[in-house]
């Protein structure tokens, strides 16, 4: 079936540096999401995005976080600057309708050292 691709699958970065996580959503999907999962804990909603705008974000979506999807290319999550507590697996998802029938990517495992 259709897939969401996340690039890279793993990333190690020094604390304070910038990182960009890339997501290639399902081609006809309109809604995009980022979730964060700290090792051993549940998945937490970060943000959803539609029509070039953030629709909703959680308190985990700190000021250092930003999302965009320039010209229908990758849907990106940028963290600048990174902090140790940003270490987690970040999952991207997309859907045709809002909050309905998600397709998830495989996740990007981010380690901030």
């Amino acid at each position, binding site marked *: 079936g259709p897939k969401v691709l996340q690039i890279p699958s793993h990333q190690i970065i020094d604390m304070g540096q910038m990182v960009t996580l890339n997501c290639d959503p399902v081609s006809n999907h309109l809604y995009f*999401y980022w979730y964060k*999962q700290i090792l051993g804990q*549940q*998945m*937490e*909603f970060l943000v959803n995005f539609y029509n070039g705008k953030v629709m*909703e974000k959680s308190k985990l979506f700190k000021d250092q976080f930003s999302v965009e999807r320039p010209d229908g290319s990758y849907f990106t999550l940028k963290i600048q600057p990174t902090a140790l507590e940003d270490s987690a*697996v970040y*999952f991207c998802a997309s859907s045709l309708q809002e*909050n*309905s*029938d*998600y*397709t*998830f*990517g*495989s*996740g990007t*495992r981010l380690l901030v050292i």
Partner: protein
Amino acid sequence: GMPVEQNPPALSLYEGADSGLRCNFSTTMKSVQWFQQNHRGRLITLFYLAQGTKENGRLKSTFNSKERYSTLHIKDAQLEDSGTYFCAADNNRIFFGDGTQLVVKP
């Protein structure tokens, strides 16, 4: 309380056994999805339900919006079924359960 309560938190089965997982919701949900997360952290969508029951091989899931619950039933458990199972329910935002860690033993 939490929007989604998932039980059990952990489950151990022998190969060939049947068992079920359950998510209870604190409010009416529009839909539910079930995911399996394998040992590498990869998330696999098992079911999406807006109502009723779906089956796929050895897996069956039911969603009852009115009674505020969903179940995932695993039949004839296999070693590759091991992993963490999450339900996620939609009420204008997706809420995840805490997960059930399933271990299937030979």
